C-alpha cells in the first residue's frame, strides 16, 4: 500500500548555542547547539541537536533545597566545588544549573559572594552552565551584571526572565553575549509575548530558551505538557517568535506529598521515578533541556534518551 504520512508544517526550531569551548573564547570542554528540529520530537530522521540534555540542579545555599537531596548528597550540598564536580564526573550530567539561592534571603547584598559562587562552579566543571540568579527586582541588576561578567566568554544560559522583570537579565546577556531563559506561566501566547518584548530590547532569537513553566506530574503537569506541545506546533507552523528550544524544570517535584509520604526506604526511588516520568514526558512534548535534582534520575534518563535518539535498546524479544 505504501502509506505516506504528511504533517502540514514546514518551519523549524531555531538553534541556540550553550557553552563556549577554547576555539570560541571560552573554557568549556563542550558546546551544545540545541534546536534545529523540523518535526515532532524524536521523529527527525537525522537530528542535528544533541538534545534532550540533562541539567543537574545545584545551589549555593541549600537551606531550602529538598531534604531528600540534602540527605542523599550529604555534605556536598554545602560545597559548590564538590557538588558541581560530582554532577559532572560521578552523576554524568550534560549541564549544571546553579541556583544562587543565597540571593533569596531578605536584604541580600553580598554581590561579590555571588561572583565567587559562579567562578567556583566554572572552575569545578568544564560543562556548560546555567546560572539561575536572583528573583528580586531590587538586586536583579547587580546580580545579573555580576554573573554575566564572571562568565564572560563562556556562553552561559542565564535565568530567568519573566514578563514583569526581564530588563536586568537581558542587559547582562547582551553585554556579555550569554543566552537567557524566558519563562511564562503555562501559556503559549504569554510565551510569545515575552519573546517579543525581549526581541524589542535587542535579544536575538538564537539567545533565547523558552521555559513554559512546568507543574510537576500530578500537580498540573498536563497543562505544561500541552503548552509545550502548542509551542512546538506553532514553531513548526512557522511562528518564529516561538521557534526556540525549550527547557523544563519542575522544582516542586521532590517536595510533593507522594515523595514526602513514601516509605523511608522507598523515598529516593519515588523521587527518581517522579522526576523521570516528568522529564521524559517533557522531552516527548519538546523540551530540549530537562532539569533534575536527584543524581539517580540522570542515569535512568540517559538510557531512555539513548533509546529514543538512536533506537538503541532493542525491543525484539520474541
Amino acid at each position, binding site marked *: 500500500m505504501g*502509506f505516506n504520512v504528511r504533517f502540514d508544517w514546514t518551519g523549524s526550531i531555531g538553534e541556540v548555542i550553550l557553552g563556549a569551548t577554547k576555539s570560541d573564547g571560552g573554557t568549556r570542554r563542550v558546546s551544545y547547539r540545541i534546536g534545529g528540529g523540523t518535526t515532532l520530537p524524536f521523529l527527525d530522521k537525522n537530528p542535528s541537536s544533541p538534545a534532550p540534555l540533562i541539567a543537574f540542579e545545584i545551589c549555593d545555599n541549600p537551606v531550602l533545597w529538598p531534604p531528600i537531596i540534602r540527605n542523599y548528597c550529604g555534605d556536598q550540598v554545602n560545597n559548590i566545588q564538590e557538588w558541581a564536580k560530582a554532577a559532572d564526573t560521578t552523576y554524568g550530567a550534560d549541564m549544571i544549573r546553579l541556583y544562587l539561592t543565597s540571593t533569596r534571603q531578605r536584604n541580600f547584598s553580598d554581590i561579590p559572594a555571588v561572583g565567587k559562587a559562579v567562578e567556583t562552579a566554572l572552575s569545578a566543571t568544564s560543562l556548560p552552565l546555567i546560572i539561575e540568579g536572583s528573583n528580586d527586582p531590587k538586586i536583579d541588576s547587580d546580580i545579573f551584571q555580576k554573573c554575566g561578567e564572571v562568565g564572560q566568554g563562556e556562553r552561559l544560559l542565564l535565568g530567568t526572565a519573566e514578563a514583569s522583570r526581564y530588563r536586568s537579565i537581558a542587559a547582562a546577556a547582551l553585554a556579555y553575549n550569554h543566552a537567557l531563559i524566558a519563562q511564562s506561566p503555562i501559556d503559549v501566547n504569554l510565551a510569545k509575548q515575552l519573546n517579543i518584548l525581549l526581541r524589542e530590547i535587542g535579544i536575538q532569537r538564537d539567545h533565547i530558551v523558552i521555559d513554559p513553566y512546568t507543574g510537576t506530574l500530578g*500537580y*498540573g503537569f*498536563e497543562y505544561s505538557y*500541552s503548552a509545550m506541545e502548542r509551542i512546538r506546533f506553532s514553531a513548526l507552523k512557522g511562528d518564529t517568535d516561538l521557534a526556540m528550544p525549550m527547557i523544563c524544570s519542575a522544582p516542586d517535584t521532590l517536595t510533593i506529598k507522594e515523595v514526602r509520604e513514601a516509605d523511608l526506604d522507598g523515598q529516593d526511588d519515588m523521587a527518581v521515578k*517522579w522526576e523521570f516520568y516528568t522529564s521524559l514526558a517533557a522531552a516527548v512534548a519538546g523540551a530540549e533541556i530537562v532539569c533534575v535534582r536527584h543524581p539517580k534520575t540522570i542515569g535512568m534518563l540517559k538510557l531512555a534518551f539513548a533509546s529514543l535518539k*538512536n533506537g538503541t*535498546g532493542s525491543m525484539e*524479544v520474541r
Partner: protein
Amino acid sequence: MALKALDIYKLLPKKNCKECGDPTCLTFAMKLAGGKADVDLCPYLDDTSKTVLGATTRPPIRLVRIGVGERSFAVGEEFVLYRHEKTFYHPPGILFKVSDAHIPDEIVSVTKRVRDESFIRVGADLRFNGIAIENTSNSADTFAKSVETVEKMADLPLVLISPNADALTAALAHCGTYRPLIHAATNKNFKEMCALAKQHGCPLVIKARHLDELGQLAKDCTAEGVQDLVMDLSPASLRDFISLSTEIRQLAITRTAPDLGYPVYFDATAGGIQDAGIAIGILKYASVIVTNPLLPSSAKAALTLRQNVYTDPQKPIQMNPGLYRIGTPGKDAPVLMTVNFSLTFFTLEGYLESTRIPCFMLIVDTEGLSVLTAVASGKLNEILVRDSLIKFGVESEVSHRNLIIPGYAAPLSGRIEEATGWKVLVGPRDAAEIGEFLNEEWKK
C-alpha cells in the same frame, strides 16, 4: 472528506423510528457527523448509503472493548494527535504480565494485586486494568491452568499471549465468554486466530512488521469476520514505536488509511527501560500497554501520568467547595480562603501540610477557575466569599474573625471586609511562601 450532518440526513430514511436509539433521524445524523455513532445502528439503510456513510462517519479509530463487567475497558475512538485539540477519550489499559511458567503462587499474588490495589488522587480511583498471561511454557495444558487460576480469582480483563492456536483454544475454554484479548494473529496464522476470535466473540491483536502489512492483515481479518482488532506494531526500539504510532494516529484520524483505524497494543517489557516504555506508550497513543508488575514508585508515577494526559483540557478540574482541615485545627486556627481549581487546592494543601500548622482551607466555588482568572472574570467576589463562610459554617468553627485570602485576590480585600465583617489578611501570591507568611503574620 467528512460529510456534514445535513448531507448525511439526506441519505437517512427520515422515518424518525427511534430504532437507532436517537429520537430523530436528524439527531442521529448529527452524531454520525461527529463520529459518535455507527451507521449500522440504522436498520433501514440500503447498502449503497451504508458504504458511502460508513467510510466517512465511522469513528476514525474503532472502539474495542476488552473484558466484561465492571473492570472491562474500552479503547479507541480517538480523534486527535494533540490532547489540546479536543481531548483524549479512552485511557490505555495497563496490564501486568505473568508467565504460565511461573509458579501458581506468583500468578495468584499478581492477580490479587491488580484486583485490589487502587490509588486515589484528585478524587479519582486509579487502578491497573488486567492481566496478560504469556504462554512461555509452550504447553497448552499449563497455559490453560494458569488462565484458570487467574480467572478463579478475579473478573479482570485478560490478554492471552501465545503463537499456538491449540494453547489458545485450551485457554479460551476457561475464559472465552469474558472477552479476553487474543495475541496475536500474523499473516501466517490469521485464519486460525480469526476462527478462534469469531467463535468466542473476542477482540484480536494483529501483529506485523510494517504498516502496509498491518493494513493488509486488518483487511484479511475483517474479511474473516473479526472486526474488533488491536494492532501490535512490533517496534524495533522506543524511537521506532513513537514514529510508527504517531504515523498510524495521523493516518487514521485523517482517514487516509481506514485499514489502520484500530487501537494500538504495546509491550513495554521489551527494550531498555520499562518505565520509559510505559510513559511513551501513555503519551504516544498506545491503548493496551503490557508491563511486568511494577514497584510502588513506578506504579504511582505511571497511573498519575495516565490520569494527567487523559484529563479533558476543556474542563478545569474542580474540587468540591467546602471547609477542609489540615491536621486538627482548633478554635484559634487560621482560615485560608482559595478557589476550587484542583491544582490550586493541591498545591496549597501540600505546602500547608509541610508547615505543620493546623488550619482550615475554605474552598469557594469559582467553577474551577484559578485565583487570577476568577478575580479577573468577577467569579471570585465578596458575595461568594460571604455566602461560603455562611454555607460552610465557618463562624462556629473558629473563635476569631480573620480570613487569609490569596495574594492575587488583594484587590477584593476591602469589599470582602465590608461584606463579611471579617478582617482580611492578604496572603502571598505564591503558595510556596505560605509557611513563612503564617509564621510571621499569623503568629503575631
